């Protein structure tokens, strides 16, 4: 039964090839748009996730300066009140696994191979712990390196590529702001950060070296911020409260006075970034699915025309024994075939679109099997939903009325 009916539906659609193709176009565009949009959303989500993982977990950034100090707004970092010993004190708090002071700056770096302008971070070994960074070769700097402000450096992969080419940099000398540093280790690759920066384009040096030698006069004994890692997500609120109390005490801030520092919870920021990505995916998909509905209405429209045009055919079929359900099935199959064929082409188009966006737009896109299954499920639903009414209209015709139709 279904075999000849499928062939029948196929030949009916083939008899009006241009019309069938134009009708399918709605589905093709709708499905294509949904697949592409979902792939962009998925890609963004995956990117955010990877970044969150690369960033390290349960992180705080403690910055100098308050959001609001009296009537005068001072930007974060504007007042330099945080010191490396603040970081040491924070590290001694319960449930704190690492507290890394950071004194950053930009500098020109030169080797015999080339020169490169990059970001230098004066920090301590805790940075590697907090950011979950590891070394692909060499070894990290030690407390004594920090204490003695030695000229040692850990360099990212981008630095290696640009300043050493294929050579092994460990043990070699680089000149940062004309001062010679020994490369002690190479950081393992991290990729892009949440805001799209290359995390491998960086050099770590002991915080004291940065303060006294590289950026002398800029920091004194202060740092720009302290990166703090709590031992667990659950401990974060306790750690935040402890840090606030500790720093207020150390900075001798009286009751009722504003903090001279700011604590930002990176986990919360990452969460909200992930949520934004999710909402964006849903919104894009919702907009795209409007075209699916439009496609469905197109199918319904054409099926209604088709039923009217083929009223006599329906009459003939009924006259030789087609039951209502046979006629219903015939037209439903045609509608389904239109929407599923459209969906198939749409999926191909969507996958192509996702690939193009990745190629030309530089956005990460991921086509998941779920989105393809979803597309086919929706297409089936659209075909049945929008095909049912015209099919039922055909099936309910009285044989003699259908036969008499001119």
């Amino acid at each position, binding site marked *: 039964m279904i075999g000849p009916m499928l062939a029948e539906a196929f030949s009916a659609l083939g008899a009006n090839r241009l019309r069938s193709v134009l009708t399918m176009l709605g589905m093709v565009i709708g499905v294509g748009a949904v697949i592409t949009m979902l792939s962009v959303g998925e890609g963004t989500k995956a990117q955010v996730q990877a970044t969150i993982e690369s960033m390290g977990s349960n992180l705080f950034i403690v910055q100098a300066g308050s959001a609001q100090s009296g009537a005068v707004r001072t930007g974060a970092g504007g007042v330099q009140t945080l010191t490396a010993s603040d970081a040491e004190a924070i590290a001694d708090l319960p449930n704190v696994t690492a507290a890394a002071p950071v004194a950053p700056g930009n500098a020109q770096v030169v080797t015999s191979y080339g020169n490169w302008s990059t970001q230098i971070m004066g920090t301590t070994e805790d940075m590697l712990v907090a950011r979950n960074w590891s070394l692909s070769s060499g070894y990290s700097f030690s407390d004594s390196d920090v204490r003695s402000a030695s000229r040692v450096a850990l360099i990212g992969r981008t630095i290696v590529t640009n300043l050493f080419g294929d050579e092994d940099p460990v043990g070699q000398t680089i000149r940062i702001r004309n001062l010679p540093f020994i490369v002690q280790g190479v950081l393992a690759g991290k990729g892009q950060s949440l805001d799209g920066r290359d995390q491998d384009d960086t050099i770590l040096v002991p915080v004291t070296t940065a303060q006294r030698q590289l950026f002398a006069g800029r920091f004194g004994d202060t740092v720009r911020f302290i990166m703090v890692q709590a031992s667990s997500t659950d401990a974060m609120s306790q750690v935040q409260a402890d840090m606030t109390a500790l720093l207020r005490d150390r900075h001798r801030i009286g009751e009722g006075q504003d903090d001279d520092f700011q604590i930002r919870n990176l986990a919360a920021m990452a969460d909200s970034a992930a949520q934004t990505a999710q909402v964006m995916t849903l919104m894009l998909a919702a907009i795209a699915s409007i075209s699916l509905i439009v496609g469905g209405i197109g199918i319904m429209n054409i099926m209604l025309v088709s039923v009217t045009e083929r009223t006599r055919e329906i*009459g003939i079929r009924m006259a*030789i024994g087609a039951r*209502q359900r*046979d006629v219903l099935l015939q037209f439903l199959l045609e509608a389904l075939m239109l929407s599923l064929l459209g969906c198939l082409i749409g999926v191909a188009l969507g996958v192509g679109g996702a690939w193009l966006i990745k190629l030309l737009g530089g956005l990460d896109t991921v086509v998941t099997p779920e989105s393809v299954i979803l597309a086919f499920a929706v297409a089936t639903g659209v075909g049945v939903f929008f095909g049912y009414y015209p099919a039922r209209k055909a099936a309910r015709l009285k*044989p003699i009325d259908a036969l008499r139709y001119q």
Partner: protein
Amino acid sequence: MPEALIRVQGLKKSYVSPAGSVEILHGLDFQINAGEFVAVMGPSGSGKSTMMNILGCLDTASSGTFEIAGKDTSKMSSDQLAGLRNDVIGFVFQGFNLLQRTTIEDNVALPLVYRSADKATRRAAAREILAKVGLDGYALSRPNQISGGQQQRVAIARALVGKPKILFADEPTGNLDTTTSHEIMDLFTGLNRQDGITLMIVTHEADIAQYADRLIRLVDGRIDYDGPARAYFQERAA
């Protein structure tokens, strides 16, 4: 006692239009037995087609009873009526009513599709019946590639493929020239004489009606004559 295939009692049909209800058939009574060859005559507009459509289960009566093969059709569902149209009744139209996009073979086999017969069975049955109506070799042609007489043969083949008990034909020669008309009538006669198929054929031409054994004449929705065809025509000739 011959088997009554069709039994019609007090059959009435009215059409409802905005202008009101108009009764076209005013109560018909007759019976048709298996193996009969009946011609239906009558002036244009007398209700012949209206009656045939009801007998062919394409339309329903307004009142009265119509039994086919012992079953009362007035209580049947649309699916049951479709079943009757599929395996008890064959219907041949004046305008052939073939599917233009479909091959001759598939047109003929179409009733079997609705019986869920497999492709091989359908093809074998269609080829056999096409041979019988003299259309060997046309299986893969399309309706617009053959003549009117051939198209009517295809329609007859389609009506026969399900091995019905009775064949209704409403002016089957109405669109055909005289020679072709007689060829088609010879085919019908053979089906009745050799295969024992019950026939009921509407025509307004006397020389077509003369092929039949029995004649029913309708005038203004009433039966004006019901008896042997030969007697009717002899009486008229005298």
